[in-house]
């Protein structure tokens, strides 16, 4: 049965023309659960025109609203009860409105009894995009958290390795390809006598290698630049100027 204005009275839809110009879906039912108002957004979302919907029973046109989770609370409103909210997380949607991708629009629905008009007004907010953005944000947040956890694990592992190298009995030194010292452990400091705060300003090949064999220093530099490994014994010079023989292993990193 379609809604017909009687005795010159305006139809519900005519009474609320502004509702066609708001961003929410609006529908209203009377005490018998007959749909008496269906705004343009609802027409667009559900693909059902006002003429098709007005006059039909809500619980018949949308059988999912017949479930207790909806019907009991809607009926409470129809008896003049307090407004009810149907949240997107607990219900996903109340009025099935298909999206082009075949999924239903996610909805937040508030149902309010309008005593003066004797109708229950359903205000339906489309939360589809909202949910998508929140899910996208959560996925990004989870991914960042996983990356952060991984980095922390690696940092811990690096710290363990650094501590092990720092405390090793053998001297360990890291230089760049030109021989500038980037890192030296405590054993290296102890053996060479160079304080840790000065060690970064010295050149391994120019300062520490015994210059009596110029050729060797140059050859070693070339090996390092060529990323080659070298193992052997070599005389090193301490800060004090004294020297000592060291077994040396050089490897590219």
């Amino acid at each position, binding site marked *: 049965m379609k809604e017909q204005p009687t005795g010159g009275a305006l139809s519900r839809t005519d009474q609320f023309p502004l509702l066609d110009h708001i961003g929410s879906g609006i529908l209203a039912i009377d005490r018998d659960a007959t749909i008496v108002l269906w705004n343009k957004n609802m027409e667009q979302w559900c693909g059902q025109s006002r003429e098709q919907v007005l006059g039909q029973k809500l619980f018949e046109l949308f059988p999912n609203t017949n479930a207790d989770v909806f019907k*009991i609370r809607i009926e409470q409103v129809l008896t003049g009860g307090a407004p*009810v*909210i149907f949240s*997107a997380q607990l219900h996903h949607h109340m009025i099935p409105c298909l999206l082009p991708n075949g999924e239903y629009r996610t909805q937040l629905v508030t149902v309010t009894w309008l005593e003066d008009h004797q109708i229950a007004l359903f205000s339906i907010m489309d939360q589809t995009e909202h949910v998508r953005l*929140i899910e996208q944000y*959560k996925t990004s947040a989870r991914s960042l958290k996983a990356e952060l956890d991984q980095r922390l694990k690696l940092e811990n592992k690096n710290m363990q390795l650094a501590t092990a190298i720092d405390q090793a009995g053998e001297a360990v030194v890291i230089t760049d390809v030109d021989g500038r010292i980037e890192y030296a452990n405590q054993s290296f400091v102890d053996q060479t006598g160079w304080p840790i705060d000065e060690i970064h300003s010295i050149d391994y090949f120019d300062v520490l290698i015994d210059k009596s064999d110029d050729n060797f220093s140059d050859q070693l530099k070339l090996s390092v630049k060529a990323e080659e490994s070298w193992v052997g014994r070599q005389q090193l010079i301490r800060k004090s100027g004294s020297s000592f023989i060291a077994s040396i292993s050089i490897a590219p990193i």
Partner: protein
Amino acid sequence: MNLTAGQRDALTELINIGVGHAASTLNCLINHKIRLSVPGIEIVTVENMKHNPTINAMSSAASVSMKFQGDFDGTATLMFPLESARILVGVLIDEEVDSTELDDLRSSTLAEVGNILLNGVMGSLSNMLVSKLDYSVPVYQEKWIQSMPVHQLAETVLIARAHFYIDDLCVEGNVMLFFELKAFDALIAAIDERVLA
């Protein structure tokens, strides 16, 4: 305001009937067995509310409020400590909720739970009073109750501590009904007339 033991028991019973209805509705909604109870109530003045230990225990809270007007006017509020709100929503949606992200969707979930509970309580009271009330749409807020403008006209506050038992979990919230003095007197008079007479 001092209540007699009979008035207090009757009021507690009415609120328990209301939360019982709310529990039935909530049970339809979720996969967990939910039970609600209100072990007792307190009546305080708005002025004294800030000294109330139950209220003071909540440094920050999530609340759902709904104004009512008619034979008696006031505001019904359900207030959860934020941590309780986080746990409750997590159980309802079967998902762990990070304490820092009680986002919009979860807020509206909590608004629905509050809506169900407040409607149960207000339905029970208005039925008993045979009173017709108009209600505002429930509003969700996250702020300290003292800074809410809901009780500007209210003089008497009924505080009912609600326990949500979900499976093995117990989450606590507070149902607070802010009444204008005349409204609370009307409520008590109706209890005397219809329940205790």
